[in-house]
């Protein structure tokens, strides 16, 4: 009686082990998806496309405590066709949201700049929502040598 039960446990353990190995890459994907889910939530059902937005940030950052970023969106900024909002998300700071900007035809030009904190090497994504509801994104990978938040 002891032997088959041992084999059963062995099979169960190996199966479980195999499952964890298979699950691992999908779990890594899940983290990446949390960023995509935030972008989808901001788009509110509208199609999300790459382009029209340019997120300008240094690819190599020495000090994560103050990193200049600039977002420029191609738009005529007229009363009929303008950028309604721009949002910036990060992948690995304690909190995904960085900032959300509201623009109007009175803004005249869809260009925004700020200084942000980055905790580690990660992806930054900028999303622009046009007055017609369509959303455009640009994702940039940034290498950070001195992290903010974790160290002082």
């Amino acid at each position, binding site marked *: 009686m002891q032997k088959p039960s041992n084999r059963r446990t062995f099979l169960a353990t190996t199966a479980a082990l195999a499952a964890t190995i298979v699950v691992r890459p999908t779990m890594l994907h899940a983290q990446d998806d949390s960023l995509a889910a935030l972008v989808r939530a901001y788009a509110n059902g509208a199609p999300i496309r790459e382009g029209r937005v340019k997120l300008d940030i240094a690819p190599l950052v020495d000090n994560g405590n*103050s990193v200049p970023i600039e977002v420029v969106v191609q738009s005529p900024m007229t009363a009929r066709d303008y950028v309604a909002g721009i949002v910036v998300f990060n992948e690995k700071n304690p909190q995904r949201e*960085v900032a959300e900007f509201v623009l109007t035809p009175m*803004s*005249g030009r869809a260009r925004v700049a*700020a*200084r942000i904190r980055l905790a580690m090497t990660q992806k930054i994504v900028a999303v622009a929502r046009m007055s017609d509801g369509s959303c455009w994104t640009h994702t940039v990978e940034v290498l950070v040598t001195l992290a903010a*938040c974790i160290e002082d």
Partner: protein
Amino acid sequence: MARTLITVPTAAGEGEIIEVRALIQHPMETGYRRSGDGDMLARDLIRRFSCRFVAAGKAGEGELVFAATLHAAIAANPSLLFHARATASGTFVFSWTGDNGFAQTERSALSVR
């Protein structure tokens, strides 16, 4: 009163698009850091910024030019750059609000030729 530094032209041509930079002195404490004693430092952030334009001779809040919602990932002494269309003479009203009842308003006049 926190110190502010606002860079905005005081005169512009009609329809001209001007660059505005608004900086305010503020620690933007994230709430994720510990002090030297190991205690968590309480979160203290500026949450919102807005820039409105009140045309000369008109009452009320004016028109929204630009607004921002800021989070912990914004660096200390938040500095924001944006643009505005000079449509008429009037006043720009800049306001910041945040945690612990933080509220500050600054003004800058614009004359349109």
